[in-house]
């Protein structure tokens, strides 16, 4: 297809593991020049005729060195041996070159995730990444992720490059990512590549596995609360494959057997289905298909026959065409994407019935290019266009014979971005990456919206917008800069600046993530969120890459942050813009990360010292207040010890300053009445609040341990299995889930109460594959 010089030849490098599964994104060094294989483990390069040294490496595999002599076009296959008994390096890195320690970036593979202790044995990538510095969880039962002071809606969570609007099951108790379906998790908490945008704080990218191209395989697991099954295999041998993974919780079924009376007709379960298929058209062209569907199904009836049913979940689908040209120097991918989240719910309360539905859906097309003419230069450019459709809600409410019907107008928006990023080596020690993303957002009709006055109050008027008519339009340049200076072959100093814009806000007033939370687009009143972050870091590898040390400091400035007025109605409120308050925020801190990457004992220590504040004119008398998840100290210690081929042990210890909480400053009695015959007074006693987040919960700390037993695999038998034994919260720490003042009106008594979720909690799971 392309002319090749007579002195050069084209070499296709295929990297796979011992079971012939491609090792995607492996690092390949050719004569000291580093590059990455694609997701199918392939790399096409032009060689001069003669001898060359190729070294391939990947997370979780021993690196492989090959000395070859090439005289004509050829294919080189490299098989990497998996490090079965070693905790994989957190960062994709090999060799001594410390510049590969990327700033504000972590990558974990599924092998590593599966060996760490987790609650109820459910491998959860969103829970595990909170063990890394600068990334915090909302608490024991929340998978809300708070990255460097940002909110949970400020993370771009991608499943195979497709945004996921609600990554949670059961209010954040579990994430939607099935551990059996995923391959790796990458987190970028700053220093964002210009290809990414639309969220302020981070990019959390979860990649799923491709199917085995050689033979059919089945794997699965039986856990305490859920079971999983995956089937994969070739569609066309060595050319096309598929994988389908499913997971379902069955605690509802178990409860029906063991606690039938207590459970009654109540039940809750969720399921996830992941499906991938790939087709290699030729050595330069490939098609990838991704599908996900997950639902939570909840039903609840109490002794008063109050009934609550709710179903909610995500559906995503994407088709990507990947192409490489100029012998692998030029690559491009085109993706067409659909993603949606929807909720259907019904609540029956005595004489009243409530039906509530809401949804958000996107159609997206994007095109990304990469040109890497040499090790000195690298260019990325591309565009993306998203058509958003928001269905904030429709409700049908019946009280007795009265019916209230409400439908909030749908909203539509176009979001687009173009970007260009270039990375170039200025000198032997100095490398710079500059990028510019230019984003555009346009909320359009058809809709009918409330007209507000200059103070943001509704005027009583409404205005109609035709289909496609512009309602509000925003556009911003988002510059990105990254500087990397090598002090030596083992240590670097890096500096980055990132500006990000977010055009969608999540309407939520609680600490948990509700399925009824609504995404609200930027409009005439609602301004897009803006963040600027500067970070500087020192990175050092020692003892032949056995140890890695990172120190990063950051400062983040946040604008147009959203809170809702006290008592704001988020559901079925046409005037939701009028309920919002806009403020500022700032976050700064220092993150330390020390990792031991080799030997029988591996692991890391992560520590963050940070402060996060918000400031709103209408809140806290205009004074700054701590963000709910401001955590002064945050410590994680992760250790893994390989005893032998059969036994592996791991342990996690976490410690964090307690969350900030708004607690009452006083109590008032109101709605007073007098019962003359009983000579008593009746009233309602209520808490009063003045300052925001004026109280700290006790510190959170916990120790978990895990043992994995892998029985010896019989020779020539495909079947293998492993047992996983977890103990969560080993020393039974009672970490508060929430605290409250219990006012007993009839006994006229008052008592502080604390609710904690997980005492010491053991779990066992069994995994198999054949």
């Amino acid at each position: 297809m392309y002319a090749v010089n007579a002195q050069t030849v084209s070499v296709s490098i295929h990297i796979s593991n011992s079971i012939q599964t491609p090792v995607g994104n492996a690092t390949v060094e050719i004569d000291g020049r580093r590059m990455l294989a694609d997701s199918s483990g392939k790399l096409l390069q032009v060689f001069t005729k003669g001898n060359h040294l190729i070294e391939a490496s990947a997370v979780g595999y021993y690196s492989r060195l090959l000395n070859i002599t090439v005289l004509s076009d050829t294919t080189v296959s490299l098989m990497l041996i998996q490090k079965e008994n070693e905790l994989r390096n957190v960062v994709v890195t090999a060799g001594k070159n410390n510049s590969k320690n990327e700033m504000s970036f972590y990558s974990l593979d599924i092998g590593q995730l599966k060996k760490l202790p987790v609650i109820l044995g459910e491998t959860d990538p969103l829970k595990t990444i909170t063990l890394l510095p600068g990334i915090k969880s909302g608490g024991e039962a929340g998978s809300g992720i708070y990255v460097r002071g940002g909110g949970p809606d400020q993370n771009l969570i991608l499943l195979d490059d497709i945004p996921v609007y609600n990554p949670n099951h059961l209010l954040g108790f579990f994430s939607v990512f099935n551990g059996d379906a995923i391959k790796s998790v990458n987190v970028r908490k700053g220093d964002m590549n210009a290809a990414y945008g639309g969220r302020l704080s981070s990019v959390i990218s979860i990649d799923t596995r491709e199917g085995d191209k050689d033979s059919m395989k089945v794997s699965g697991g039986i856990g305490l609360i859920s079971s999983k099954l995956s089937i994969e295999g070739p569609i066309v041998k060595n050319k096309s494959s598929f994988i389908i993974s499913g997971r379902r919780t069955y605690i509802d079924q178990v409860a029906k057997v063991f606690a039938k009376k207590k459970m009654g007709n109540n039940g809750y379960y969720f399921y996830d289905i992941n499906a991938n298929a790939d087709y290699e058209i030729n050595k330069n062209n490939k098609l990838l298909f991704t599908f996900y569907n997950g639902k939570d199904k909840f039903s609840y009836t109490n002794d008063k026959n109050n009934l609550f049913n709710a179903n909610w979940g995500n559906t995503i689908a994407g088709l990507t065409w990947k192409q490489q040209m100029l012998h692998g120097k030029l690559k491009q991918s085109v993706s067409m994407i659909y993603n949606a989240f929807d909720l259907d719910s019904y609540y029956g309360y005595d004489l009243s019935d409530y039906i509530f539905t809401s949804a958000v859906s996107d159609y997206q097309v994007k095109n990304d290019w990469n040109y890497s003419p040499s090790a000195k230069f690298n260019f990325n450019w591309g565009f993306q266009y998203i058509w958003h459709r928001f269905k904030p809600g429709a409700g049908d409410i019946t009280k007795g014979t009265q019916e209230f019907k409400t439908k909030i107008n749908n909203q539509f928006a176009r979001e687009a971005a173009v970007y260009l990023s270039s990375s170039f080596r200025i000198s032997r020690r100095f490398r710079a990456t500059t990028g510019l993303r230019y984003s555009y957002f346009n909320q359009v009709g058809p809709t009918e919206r409330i007209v507000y006055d200059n103070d943001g109050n509704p005027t009583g008027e409404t205005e109609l917008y035709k289909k496609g008519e512009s309602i509000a339009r925003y556009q911003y340049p988002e510059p990105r800069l990254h500087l990397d200076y090598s002090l030596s072959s083992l240590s670097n100093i890096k500096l980055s600046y990132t500006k990000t814009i977010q055009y969608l806000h999540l309407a939520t007033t609680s600490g948990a993530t509700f399925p009824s939370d609504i995404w609200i687009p930027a409009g005439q009143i609602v301004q897009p969120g803006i963040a600027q972050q500067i970070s500087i870091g020192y990175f050092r590898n020692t003892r032949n890459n056995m140890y890695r040390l990172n120190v990063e400091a950051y400062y983040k400035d946040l604008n147009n942050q959203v809170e809702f007025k006290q008592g704001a109605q988020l559901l079925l409120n046409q005037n939701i813009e009028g309920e919002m308050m806009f403020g500022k925020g700032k976050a700064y801190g220092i993150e330390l990360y020390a990792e031991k990457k080799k030997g029988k004992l591996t692991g890391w220590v992560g520590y963050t010292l940070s402060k996060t504040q918000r400031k709103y004119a209408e809140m806290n008398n205009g004074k700054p207040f701590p963000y709910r998840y401001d955590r002064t100290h945050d410590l994680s210690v992760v250790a893994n010890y390989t005893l032998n081929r059969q036994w592996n042990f791991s342990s996690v210890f976490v410690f964090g300053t307690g969350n900030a909480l708004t607690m009452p400053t006083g109590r008032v009695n109101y709605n007073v009445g007098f019962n003359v015959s009983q000579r008593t007074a009746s009233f309602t006693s209520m808490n009063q609040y003045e300052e925001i987040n004026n109280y700290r919960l006790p510190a959170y700390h916990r120790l978990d341990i895990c043992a994995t037993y892998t029985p010896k695999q019989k020779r020539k038998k495909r079947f293998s299995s492993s047992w996983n034994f977890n103990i969560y919260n080993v020393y039974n720490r009672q970490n508060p889930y929430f605290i409250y003042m219990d006012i007993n009106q009839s006994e006229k008594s008052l008592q502080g109460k604390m609710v904690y979720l997980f005492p010491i909690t053991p779990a066992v799971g069994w995994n198999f594959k054949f």
Partner: protein
Amino acid sequence: MNDSTKALHLYQPVNQNKQKHWFYHRAVNMAMTGTFLLFSAGCEKNFDIGLAHTEPQLVVEAYINTEIPEYNYVILSKSQTAENTEITSIPVKNALVKISEGSLMQNNTITWDKNATVILKETTLPDVPAGISDGIYTDPKLQTDPAQALRGIPGKYYLLEIEVDGEAYTAVTPLLYPIPIDHLSTDYHYTDKDGSSKGRVTVHFKDPDTTGNYQLFYWRHSDNQKSFGWGSLGTSKRIINSDENNNGSYMHLTNSYGFVRGDSITYYMANVPRSVYNFWDSYNKARNSSGPLSTPASLLNTINGKNVTGCFSGLAISSATIVMD
């Protein structure tokens, strides 16, 4: 434009489409929190929270209504520290409490008729021991000349002035025109767990054609026949009705309370301004604001002054009576 229309115009700005979904949120919160705890074997224990002490607030509960002169009163109390285990109220005595009537003028200012200002005095309720009923201020004419006692007039404005411990407090409320109750009906009959026959009452009325109408509902029946005060009446403040989605409709609101067969029920429907609606809406939220899934909510104060909370509620009442069949 008459006073009452102006009042509507001034105090009920715009239909803000605040459909009440408190029940829904509560259902979600309760059900899911319950499931959490059930699934995770969650536990609860007593906990010394250790809250900071703050200066007490003056708490004002004041009413002016068109129907029941005895129920035009002001109750003053002090707030307590959040961790004080003593739940009883701390009455505020020896306050100067005045209510004046006013009219809205063409230039949107209110002229107060200071000559007709009523000074409310501390009252001891008959048969209620002193101490329990301290801090209640009523019109003394209720004892001496009930026919001339303070009574709210629809379309007028009312000014509440309080002086206590050297501080002055004020609040204003309009009194709207009552919305007539068309009729009451009984339905949804059932047999309760104790075997008694009960039924529900439905109130039927025509919502005015103007948007932004809000109602509170109270009722008196056998259980609270010998009681005093709005807080002792049966109340459906929870079902604060807004006409956001049903403007101008003929309304049929069924009360979920079960009334015993043969019981005589007097139903009060209070048409209230937006500020009063907002306050009682916040009251409902404040009394239920705890737990991780809710936002802390305080009362939306309508009283002017230093370190004070409460509401001056102007209730334009219409009433009807029915016997449960």
